[in-house]
């Protein structure tokens, strides 16, 4: 009887254990990031450049596409109902800055840089390089996870700016192709843009970067089972990252909106 219950509950138990392990890894990473010595400078720079090189192009296409289609065209439809398509600028503050820029950045960074990190660390794990490092007295968390964690956090935060710029460009494109004037777009955009929205967007995006880095490093470092193991690790890393990012996004946006009523007023 107990074995039956064990078998039924095993997946849930494993999932909880994994979440706990990721929390422990987060704690270890933060502690070893701030405690001297700091041997991870070079690795940090190479990871930073690596992520920027890999992501700039997919992110460019993705942000323009999402904000032109999803936000631009559909929002013009929605606003036409009220006869107020000039309010598109105000909507783009909500759409591009608050929502689409952070989560398209997170999706692309997770899919591009996160998967590459998992593949890289997973390959090292199954070639037993990580064990070799530990034998040599080199701490893999300090030398491999911390630089990736910091680099992804900063890259994701900075790419948010990039995504906002190209997201707004998508809005401009949608305005132009719908035959509307650009003047009202910029006017409502600039009167509605608030500092809280911008900060919220940056903070959210930086925390997305932290989630991506921890999940992807954890999955890479625990890859097992030969050739298929690395692929499986990448697969589950990206699935877990997506779910985690979206759940976090929901809680964060809800808290931001509920605690800052002034950003909800369209001016």
């Amino acid at each position, binding site marked *: 009887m107990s074995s039956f219950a064990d078998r039924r509950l095993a997946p849930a138990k494993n999932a909880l254990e994994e979440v706990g392990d990721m929390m422990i890894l987060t704690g270890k990473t933060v502690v070893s990031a701030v405690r001297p010595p700091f041997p991870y400078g070079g690795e940090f720079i190479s990871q930073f450049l*690596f992520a920027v*090189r*890999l992501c700039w*192009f*997919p992110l460019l*296409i*993705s942000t323009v*596409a*999402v904000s*032109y*289609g*999803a936000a631009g*065209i*559909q929002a*013009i*439809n*929605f606003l*036409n*109902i*009220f*006869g*107020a398509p000039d*309010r598109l600028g105000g*909507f783009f503050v*909500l759409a591009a800055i*608050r*929502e689409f820029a952070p989560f*398209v950045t997170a*999706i*692309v960074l997770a*899919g*591009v840089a996160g*998967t*590459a990190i*998992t*593949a*890289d660390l*997973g*390959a090292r794990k*199954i*070639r037993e390089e990580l064990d070799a490092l530990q034998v040599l007295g080199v701490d893999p968390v300090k030398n491999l996870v911390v630089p990736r964690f910091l680099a992804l956090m900063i890259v994701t935060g900075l790419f948010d700016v990039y995504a906002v710029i190209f997201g707004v460009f998508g809005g401009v494109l949608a305005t132009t192709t719908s035959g509307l004037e650009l003047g009202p777009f910029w006017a409502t955009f600039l009167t509605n843009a608030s500092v809280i929205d911008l900060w919220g967007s940056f903070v959210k995006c930086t925390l997305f970067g932290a989630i991506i880095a921890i999940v992807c490093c954890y999955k890479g470092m625990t890859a097992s089972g030969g*050739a*298929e193991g*690395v*692929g*499986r*690790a*990448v*697969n589950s890393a*990206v*699935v877990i990252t*997506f*779910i985690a990012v*979206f*759940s976090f996004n*929901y809680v964060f946006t809800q808290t931001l*909106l509920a605690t800052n009523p002034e950003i*909800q*007023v*369209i001016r």
Partner: protein
Amino acid sequence: MATPSDSWTAVPRDWFASFGEIVKFLGKVLLQIIDLRVFKYSGEVLRQAGLLIMSSALVIWVLVFVVGLQCGIEGAYFSRAVGAPANAGTFSALCNLRELVPYAFGWMMAAKIGTGIVAELGSMRISDEIDALEVMGINSITFLCATKLLASWLTLPFLYIIAIGAGFFASYLAVVEQIGEVSSGGYFLLFWMFQNPPDMFFSLAKAMVMATVIVLVGCYYGYNASGGPVGVGTATAKSMVLNLVMVHLIGMLGTQVFWGGNARAPIGG
């Protein structure tokens, strides 16, 4: 470093270089389905369909559910901001059905099914199992790729329609139960007014094009993986990049084609 990151233009150049290869591969797989050769392996098709449902359905619905909640709260706050709080239902109807459910579906498809296929086929390739299939006289593209594509065509429309349901349910929860912006009846009145069966069909078409591309891209990268266990990981990561961009482009083109010229919103416009 295990990934091709030597230069800034590595990603776009890589795509241009392999674009022809990918299209050729896609043609080959589609041909196997069109001339019905794939039905020799209908048992394998059904097995793949079962695997798809058992392993991927739940995560897809979970992601769509979370995205639906997001649509709900943004809809409630935005329609309050334009001074028409009753229109939260309008916003979540447009947001869910037309945009975010297809996107969330595409993202999760790419993450779960696309990379899963690369991992599976890639490890078969590097352990020479695909060559073994060829030696035994089985056409490996038919047996491995065409069956997967057919299985996804069989199951994904149904998974997708349930996913739309999950998104709608989540938006309802967010708007009516959590925020309490409008009454249940008022929500549903506008919610159903702003969508019709063609909208659902277009949304489904968008998602199915995404699904087809994702399965084929996954098959391409897995089938052509090389370079040992590291190569499988790298191929998995690369397939994800291409898939994400394709999902976004298909989403944009779909919106432009289906709703760009005709908003199909019953008031004004």
